[in-house]
């Protein structure tokens, strides 16, 4: 990426102005000495989360969650008949997850195929996260489908997917042991920070995503694919867990509000 001399507003040659040009060259200050991050948050602050359930008519349960600028949608079908007879399990339901990122979700358009390795991996993570929580033994020989869609990618994909899936499963009335709340955390300049956005993620910040069951505090998912010093691991994980508890409160509020709305409509 070249910066033209003399005219600060213009880029030269064939570059398109987009926020993704923060890359290898520029040193964007992710955490100022005063403790503020690029979007004005403190190190231990979550982005604003808004969510809604029952967004669609066809699916049994659906939810839409906006965490900062990341927009994620989850739709749940089930329990219903298994698509491939060979895969049916005699004693419980199978869980099928599909994860898809829209081509217009990132600043540069990128069309990913359904069999993209990253997408399949995220789908597998989510399936493993929900398998112990959903009471699958109540529905032998059936299938529960969770379809996830990302409309806007601003960091925290895995965590918003898990949170959206939780809301959608609750909306579908599928029995679960507990909420599953996920949050990401990282370490910038040796300070643990909560809920990374895309800018912070792409700047080689070590990032850890954790999903817990709030009532017991048990960890269902722990994922990190960057380097982090072992001494920092405990504090970062603890911060992420705290973030999960905050998210649990927000999700619980949304579920109760929507149920109250339904109840009001029934009794009015």
């Amino acid at each position: 990426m070249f910066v033209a001399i003399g005219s600060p507003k213009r880029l030269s040659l064939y570059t398109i102005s987009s926020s993704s040009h923060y890359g290898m060259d520029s040193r964007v200050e992710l955490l100022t000495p005063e403790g503020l991050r690029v979007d004005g948050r403190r190190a231990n602050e979550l982005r604003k989360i808004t969510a809604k359930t029952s967004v669609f008519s066809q699916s049994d349960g659906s939810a839409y969650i906006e965490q900062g600028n990341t927009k994620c949608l989850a739709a749940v079908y089930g329990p219903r008949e298994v698509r491939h007879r060979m895969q049916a399990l005699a004693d419980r339901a199978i869980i099928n997850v599909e994860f898809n990122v829209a081509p217009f979700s990132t600043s540069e358009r990128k069309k990913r195929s359904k069999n993209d390795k990253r997408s399949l991996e995220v789908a597998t993570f989510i399936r493993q996260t929900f398998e112990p929580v959903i009471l699958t033994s109540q529905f032998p020989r059936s299938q529960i489908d969770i379809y996830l869609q990302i409309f806007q990618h601003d960091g925290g994909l895995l965590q918003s997917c898990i949170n959206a899936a939780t809301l959608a499963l609750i909306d579908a009335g599928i029995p679960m042991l507990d909420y599953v709340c996920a949050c990401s955390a990282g370490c910038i300049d040796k300070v643990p920070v909560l809920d990374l956005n895309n800018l912070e993620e792409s700047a080689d910040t070590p990032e850890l995503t954790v999903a817990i069951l709030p009532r017991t505090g048990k960890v269902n998912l722990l994922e990190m694919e960057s380097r982090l010093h072992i001494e920092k691991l405990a504090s970062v994980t603890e911060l992420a867990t705290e973030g999960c508890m905050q998210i649990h409160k927000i999700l619980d509020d949304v579920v109760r509000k929507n149920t109250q709305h339904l109840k009001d409509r029934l009794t009015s």
Partner: protein
Amino acid sequence: MPIPVISPAEKSYIEQGVETDCRADGRGRLEYRHLVLETGLLSQASGSARCRLGNSDVLVGIKVEIGEIEQDQPNQGRISCNVECSPSASQQFEGRGADDLNNTLTLALERLLSGPQSGLDLDKLCIIPGQQCWVIHIDAMVMDCAGNLFDCIVMTTRAALFNTRIPKTEIQDLGDGEFEFEVMDDVEDAEAIAGWENLPMSVTLYKIGERYILDPTILEELCSQVTLTVGVNKTGQVCGVQKGGSGSVDPSLLTEMIQTATTLAGPLIQQLDAKLAEEEKNVLDKRRKGEPVQKLGFFAAVI
């Protein structure tokens, strides 16, 4: 997963309803369902829109990128369309179930939008003749399927194209036939797509029994044997005709259906365009006053 099925009793009920001009939900034959349309929901995209027609939900995101020109049109930009039906839309779209439908809808949309019948000024999209041009990528995602998908997609695409802004470029002539261009960063300088007003709208008529209806629900779609999609622009010119379905239609009925579609499209385009202009005016007013603009997106209450 099974394709939706319909019993003969239900089919007969719907056919009789269509005959007497009173459908299952109380509409007349040529009435649309409740329509919710919003533009500018996605900040990362160059243009976006979401439309909910009855329960059919379509989200369109448009990204404008710089690309190489096509050899047979060296002075024009181009449009590329892509329609994807999300598995959340219907039980049958799981795995590869939606592939066929995706292909059909993508090609139908491309047929309507690429070429002179779309009315867009593709010459304006050319940056350096013979080398670089703007490519408009239209990505439509069908989130919820409740009948009449194609009309919904075209409505949303029109609205998203209305909302799209193309960054301004400045070309420098280095001499020797060499050109260099710069893309302006300023959002205020970005311009709308030239020729947007001439975009056609599609009206799809579904033949049930001996009558035809507009904007069917899924069950009504299952009862129809012939569909006719007509693309009409605001001056009443026909921009494309396609017959679908697995039946045959009498030529006189065909002409009548095309006539009806052409007549219906006029007021529809007018009203939609008026609403889009009003929405944009509100947004600009709010921006000028410094008030925050709130886009509802999927939070819009539709019940």
